């Protein structure tokens, strides 16, 4: 039972990772920018949900749409002010820029809220359901389901809608997109805002069972990056599979090893995988 429990909890975590990684990979696909500050947007989502909870008692799961919208707007602003100017800059500059943004966001939140760890104590925080003896935490279950649904909706949006096709086209061939009369600039702005909104949604959805602190962002960014690297940069299908696997691996390792150790081992393992298969494990088999 323990093993299945671990796997289930890993799957649920994986769903959230997929949501975060999806935004990350979209930005890369369209703009070839790896956004060090992506995890900060998730963190903003958490704080957004926190504020709505403490001020107006709104449950994070209900405030999700608003939070996602707000973080999406922040993303749009971030794109216009900080990302657009460096799109054509050398990679080094791009890296320093998004790294600088990472620290900036982290510090602003630190200044505004202090470094204390916060939690949101919803009424159902400790509820569990126990089908067939497997203990599943309700908040985690809901988070996983919502994350999976939003990811699925995003995927459908990308495949079926005109705007979604525009994003995919831009990622595949920018010149071709410009020559059919499209505005690359608008696609970039929209993609960045979408990726931020997805990150914000992920933040809101994990708030009921997570520790909220200004320092969680970086960890999330690294995980998103490692997932995307394993799944193949810019490939949404690969990201999906890799996210789920990552969630499960983390869950298993957390069970077997003390917490800090698990992270250490997990990261080292992923680094080793990347060194061995740099193009992403799923490049050939998916999409």
């Amino acid at each position, binding site marked *: 039972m323990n093993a299945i429990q671990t796997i289930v909890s890993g799957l649920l975590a994986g769903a959230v990772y997929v949501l975060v990684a999806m935004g990350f990979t979209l930005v890369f696909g369209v703009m070839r920018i790896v956004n060090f500050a992506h995890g900060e947007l998730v963190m903003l989502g958490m704080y957004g949900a926190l504020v709505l909870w403490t001020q107006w008692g709104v449950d994070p799961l209900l405030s999700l749409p608003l939070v996602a919208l707000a973080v999406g707007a922040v993303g749009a602003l971030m794109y216009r002010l900080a990302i657009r100017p460096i799109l054509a800059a050398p990679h080094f500059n791009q890296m320093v820029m998004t790294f600088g943004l990472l620290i900036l966001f982290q510090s602003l939140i630190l200044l505004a809220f202090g470094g204390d760890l916060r939690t949101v104590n919803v009424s159902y925080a400790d509820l569990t359901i126990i089908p067939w003896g497997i203990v599943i935490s309700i908040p985690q279950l809901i988070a996983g389901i919502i994350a999976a649904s939003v990811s699925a909706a995003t995927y459908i949006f990308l495949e079926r809608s005109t705007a979604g096709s525009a994003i995919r086209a831009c990622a595949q061939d920018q*010149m071709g997109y410009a*020559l059919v*009369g499209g505005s690359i600039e608008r696609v970039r702005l929209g993609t960045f805002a979408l990726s931020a909104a997805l990150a914000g949604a992920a933040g809101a959805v994990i708030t009921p069972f997570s520790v909220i602190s200004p320092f969680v962002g970086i960890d999330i960014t690294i995980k998103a990056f490692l997932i995307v690297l394993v799944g193949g940069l810019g490939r949404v299908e690969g990201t999906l599979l890799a996210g789920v696997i990552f969630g499960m691996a983390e869950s298993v390792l957390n069970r077997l090893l003390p917490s800090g150790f698990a992270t250490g081992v997990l990261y080292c393992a992923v680094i080793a995988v990347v060194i061995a298969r740099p193009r992403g494990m799923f490049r050939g088999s998916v999409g």
Partner: protein
Amino acid sequence: MLEPAAVLLGAELPICGTWTGGGNLDPDSGSDVPLLAASSVIVKYGTLTAVHSASFAVKAREVVSLLGANGSGKTTLLRAATGIIPISAGLLQCQGENAAAWLPARFVRSGVIHVPEGRHLFPEMTVLENLRLGALAKPGGANVRLERVFALFPKLAERRSQEAGTLSGGEQQMLAIGRGLMGDPVLLILDEPSLGLAPIVVESILETLAQLRREGMSMLVVEQDVHVAVSVADRCYLMETGRIVLEGDPASFLENEKVRHSYLGLSDS
């Protein structure tokens, strides 16, 4: 002497209507305003001058070809003429309006559609998706144009659900032209349509171009292959090291010493 392309190429395809670019231009209005005209255009990459003072014009219902060897600057000139790169000096006009600062999207909306060298298709999207994206700037009437593109290229209709990246070279070129047509052009610009294609495929592309010509489409064809360049054109330009050095009708082009020198390097010293 070179016979008219239509007779050379055998059976004609039925004319499915004319391509007049919707409401943008009435080709029978008798207007002499060129669809696209460049005057003394200079294009630079940093300190390097790729095009030195080139002038050309394409009028309605006309097929013009721009011939030149590798490195002659023809692709650069074309990119400048459709807003992909900026011009450093000179005049660029699209249907009479000053187009020097236009972005590619503006050209598309005005009916000047550029089918680029290397095609720039969306490789992981299907043929149908690629075509539909071609109508991005003019969604109205897209379905009608889609049917006509499939009529023109039956092979594409067969493969409508196939990913563009898996098509053969010739099919990709057809798709690129088809995508261009989906934008409802008044002027279709083709950059090296025969590049890397087998002779038999080039022939079928030529047939397509001839068909389009019969249907009233104005075209600017940039080519390295002399045969392709002269067989569809009403008028030809020759470009060499960034300058337009010759203009004339196809027949005289073939007889010309300069063409011979450009292509075989057989000038003296």
